[in-house]
């Protein structure tokens, strides 16, 4: 082979390699800047290399992704929110159907089919799970030990814990309106402890915020506020810098916080030792109800118009594998969802055992379970109740007005 032929062959080879390299990368956008290293680690062995791009601000992120989704330059993969918060993307045909990937893993017994409920529209599944969070009560073990308390099995147990803590100068529960969205935490929790069926109907416009069940819920909530079982609702929660709630919890001034399991790292960051934090699932107020808990389900979606769609589907398949999920759980300490994956921390492991063996109904979180047009305005109304508990009746009227306005032009 002469020199010219060798040169031409080398050039062709380099060109082919460069072309392959340029084509084989999947963009992954997300708004979880703190998770950037964890994403890089968990996607490390993906069949097509993944380039993660974090956005610092959620609103900017949403605007950027929504604008990109109509074009071929949309990211192959991107994180989003489940339920009604992804419905408009599904309705507009902007995200890919991943039912086949789910079928493969569900048929193999690696995933519970119910996990896909929050991503299912008209029988098709449009997302894979990024993270699952269980909404549980974190409690300060030292405080509980000091007053001879144990995690409650019944509602009466919980009432006794509250009374004991209050008598001893410890605020039983944290509750806040800071950051707006935390207002829904206790709304959904009180409601599912009294009437989960009403909660589910309310979320989809089949019940009214003025129904007697909702009135009863607000009455119970107000009773607890009046008894001093909650922090002042203006307490910092960490959504805007300071976090007085976590500080008070670490100092033993606050006994319990009802929140998603992702808050565990916030508590350890506030000075709590991991061994000093316990967790339990709230008991039902009505004993005859089936055990249940609120679940937050964060999805990863595949852009239907993206030029990277085929590669993104390969990476989505990999993401659901035990290899990727174990790597993900190992760095993030999230609840494991692939049955071959082991939890990282004893706390999550114990919760997983309780939930899996206890037959718990997993109920979608308010933020995703009801349309954003209602949820975004509803948290402000619920926040008004928390700040001024005597306004429950007016708040119910206002909530129903929001629901009426939305459901008048949308199918429940």
């Amino acid at each position: 082979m002469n020199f010219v032929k060798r040169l031409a062959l080398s050039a062709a080879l380099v060109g082919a390699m460069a072309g392959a390299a340029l084509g084989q990368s999947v963009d992954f956008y997300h708004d979880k800047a703190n998770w950037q290293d964890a994403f890089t680690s968990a996607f490390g062995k993906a069949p097509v290399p993944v380039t993660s791009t974090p956005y610092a601000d959620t609103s900017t992120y949403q605007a950027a992704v929504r604008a990109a989704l109509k074009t071929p330059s949309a990211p192959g993969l991107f994180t989003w929110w489940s339920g009604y918060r992804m419905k408009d993307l599904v309705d507009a045909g902007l995200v890919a159907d991943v039912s086949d990937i789910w079928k493969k893993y569900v048929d193999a017994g690696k995933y519970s089919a119910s996990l896909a409920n929050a991503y299912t529209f008209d029988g098709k599944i449009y997302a894979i799970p990024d993270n699952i969070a269980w909404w549980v009560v974190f409690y300060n073990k030292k405080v509980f030990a000091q007053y001879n308390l144990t995690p409650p099995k019944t509602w009466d147990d919980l009432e006794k814990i509250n009374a004991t803590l209050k008598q001893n100068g410890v605020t039983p529960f944290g509750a806040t309106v800071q950051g707006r969205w935390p207002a829904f935490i206790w709304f959904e929790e009180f409601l599912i402890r009294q009437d989960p069926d009403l909660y589910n109907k309310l979320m989809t416009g089949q019940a009214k915020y003025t129904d007697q069940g909702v009135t009863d819920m607000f009455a119970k909530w107000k009773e607890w506020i009046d008894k001093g079982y909650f922090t002042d609702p203006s307490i910092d929660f960490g959504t805007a810098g300071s976090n007085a709630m976590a500080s008070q919890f670490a100092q033993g001034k606050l006994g319990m916080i009802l929140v998603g399991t992702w808050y565990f790292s916030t508590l350890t960051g506030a000075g709590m030792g991991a061994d000093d934090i316990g967790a339990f699932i709230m008991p039902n107020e009505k004993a005859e109800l089936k055990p249940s808990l609120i679940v937050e389900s964060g999805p990863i979606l595949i852009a239907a118009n993206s030029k990277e769609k085929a590669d993104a589907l390969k990476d989505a398949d990999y993401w659901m594998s035990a290899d990727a999920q174990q790597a993900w759980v190992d760095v993030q300490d999230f609840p494991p969802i692939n049955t071959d994956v082991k939890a990282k921390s004893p706390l999550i492991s114990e919760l997983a055992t309780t939930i899996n063996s206890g037959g718990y109904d997993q109920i979608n979180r308010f933020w995703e379970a009801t349309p954003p047009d209602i949820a975004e305005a509803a948290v402000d109304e619920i926040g008004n109740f928390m700040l001024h508990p005597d306004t429950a009746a007016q708040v119910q009227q206002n909530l129903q007005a929001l629901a009426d306005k939305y459901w008048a032009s949308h199918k429940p």
Partner: protein
Amino acid sequence: MADSTTTPPTMSLARPARVTGMRLRTRIEPYLYVLPATLFVVAFLLYPMVMTLVRSFTHDDGINPPEFVGLQNFADLLADPHFLLSLRNTFVWTIAAVVLPVTLGLVFALTLNAVRWSSVFKSVIYLPATVSAAAVGILFSFIFGYDNGALNSLLNVFGIHNIRWLFEAGINTYSMIGAYTWQSTGLNMMLFLVGLQGLPQEPIEAAKLDGCTGFGLVWRIIVPMLMPYVVIATLLAVINGFKVFDQIWVMTQGGPGRSSETLAVTMYREGFILFNQGYSAAIAVIIALAALIFSYFYLRSVLDQEKQI
């Protein structure tokens, strides 16, 4: 006859091509210098402004094709109690932004300009102006915190119970205005100090010789001479008051219950949280029009006064 009127003069045809090219180049050359700047203005100012105006006449969720709705967004705004509250809060902010930082800046400038060894005080008052509005928001969130905020801790010493500085509808806007005043007084003070140092001394000396001193000297001689600076400071304060956003977003996100929203916050919330982008564009148009109309009449009034003088 026909030929003499329809045939062009032969002189122009005989004009050398090189001369014509040079004249053309000479005429075009100035436009080429301003072309890059013009392109930037068109691309980054005029085009977005026109698109915002167009979008304000549509229902647009950023996903589906926009639907033309005429003036519906503007009609909806006038019937929206949240918008009306937001408008009211914006006026409160605008008035406060003029009255507090500009007045305090003028008072500090007049006081410190006449005081020896005042550079330390000037620096201390000016320093907050170097901090970003978002950072000021975070800082004052600590000060206004309910349970362990600095302000409530101080009040507790005097037996006063904790106050929800940021979470009580009647209070939170004023709390945030306090933080805004802390930050923006220094810049106004510097503006007035520059003005004071540039004032001609002869009228002031003449006034003193005529027995005009103290407050009378300030009010009758110095402040009128500082009017160009007062005009600029007031205009900037009004525009800043209209567009205030970042500090509110960091401290309350417009809450609780949307009680502390201003027009800029409402616009952001509608556009980037609820994705009602047509509605959001309508708010943007109203903010721009309000600022434009105020600026026009304010400047015209001031210029008319100066002409009379």
